[in-house]
């Protein structure tokens, strides 16, 4: 009876799609990373406050402000240390908070050898130097503000693709590639003359950071919605009828 109800040829063919939708669902539970990166972003912004305090204090010779700046800097450093040490715990806690009610299904990240881990850090460091360098050259006027984003795309796009392919796959799905695709399109649009860039003193920084952060977050949010779709599809395929629910 159970088999007749739920293992009809058309049903069983559909059942073959379960692993595919399961993978898509697990790979795209991206809101956890989105929330985590938002917290990192907020902390990064908070760091600038004590640094600014210190700069202003030393320029004006205000020792009270310098003291406040030093205390704030130490506090932020301690917070950052705790945050980095408990990263996995925090990620698990966020994941439970967002997806806890539907349980956990996961695909692990690739096991990285020590060499590959160091390579990852080295590549990230090179990228950071290039990114800050381009931004600085743009702010100093050596590169036109209009072209800082297209120039940064030359190394940012390969970096984003490689970091997904070598380090985030298969834990994260190919939806993350949306970010480099959008970054490339943004660069192309600027080159063909579409005015999607800011001018002014901070223009270079904003023109590079905003698309980088914005498209990154956009791909995480799209990933999250795709995981909802995948889960719905999955439940549709899995759906059991009648006696099958209770049969053992």
């Amino acid at each position, binding site marked *: 009876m159970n088999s007749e*109800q739920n293992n009809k040829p058309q049903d069983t063919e559909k059942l073959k799609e379960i692993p595919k939708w399961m993978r898509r669902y697990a790979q795209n539970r991206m809101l956890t990373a989105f929330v985590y990166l938002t917290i990192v972003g907020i902390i990064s912004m908070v760091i600038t406050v004590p640094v600014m305090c210190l700069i202003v204090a030393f320029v004006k010779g205000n020792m009270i402000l310098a003291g406040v700046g030093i205390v704030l800097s130490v506090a932020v450093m301690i917070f950052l240390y705790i945050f980095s040490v408990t990263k996995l715990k925090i990620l698990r806690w966020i994941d439970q908070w967002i997806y806890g009610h539907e*349980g956990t299904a*996961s695909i692990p990240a690739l096991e990285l050898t020590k060499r590959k881990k160091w390579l990852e850090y080295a590549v990230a460091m090179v990228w950071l130097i290039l990114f800050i360098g381009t931004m600085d050259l743009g702010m100093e006027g050596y590169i036109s503000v209009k072209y800082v984003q297209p120039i940064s795309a030359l190394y940012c796009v390969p970096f984003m693709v490689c970091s997904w392919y070598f380090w985030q796959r298969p834990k994260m799905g190919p939806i993350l590639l949306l970010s480099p695709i959008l970054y490339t399109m943004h660069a192309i649009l600027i080159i063909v003359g579409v005015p999607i860039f800011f001018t002014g003193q901070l223009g270079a920084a904003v023109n590079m950071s905003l698309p980088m952060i914005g498209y990154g977050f956009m791909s995480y949010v799209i990933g999250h919605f795709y995981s909802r779709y995948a889960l719905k599809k999955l439940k549709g395929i899995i*759906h*059991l009828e009648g006696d099958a*629910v209770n*049969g053992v």
Partner: protein
Amino acid sequence: MEFDKVIHEPVRLRIMMILSGVEQADFNFLLTTLSLTRGNLSRHVEKLESAGYLKVKKSFNGKMPNTSYQLTQKGSKALAQYWENLDAVRQLGQP
């Protein structure tokens, strides 16, 4: 040709298929996705585990106990064999 009776049961086939798509899934996920009762799911999982098709991992999520399941190599092979047999039977039935 004989079908593996452990896998041929609809709920257990679905559990095996779910686990074949990921590294591991926990009890809660299987419960909400399959819309079963706790007792019913436990019995199905026990049958799969005693057949050697599943590996159970018990851990703690903070203070809450968490049970995850992973398909074993034996389970993967049995699942592949099940589909092979089913497809073969279907081909025999075609005109």
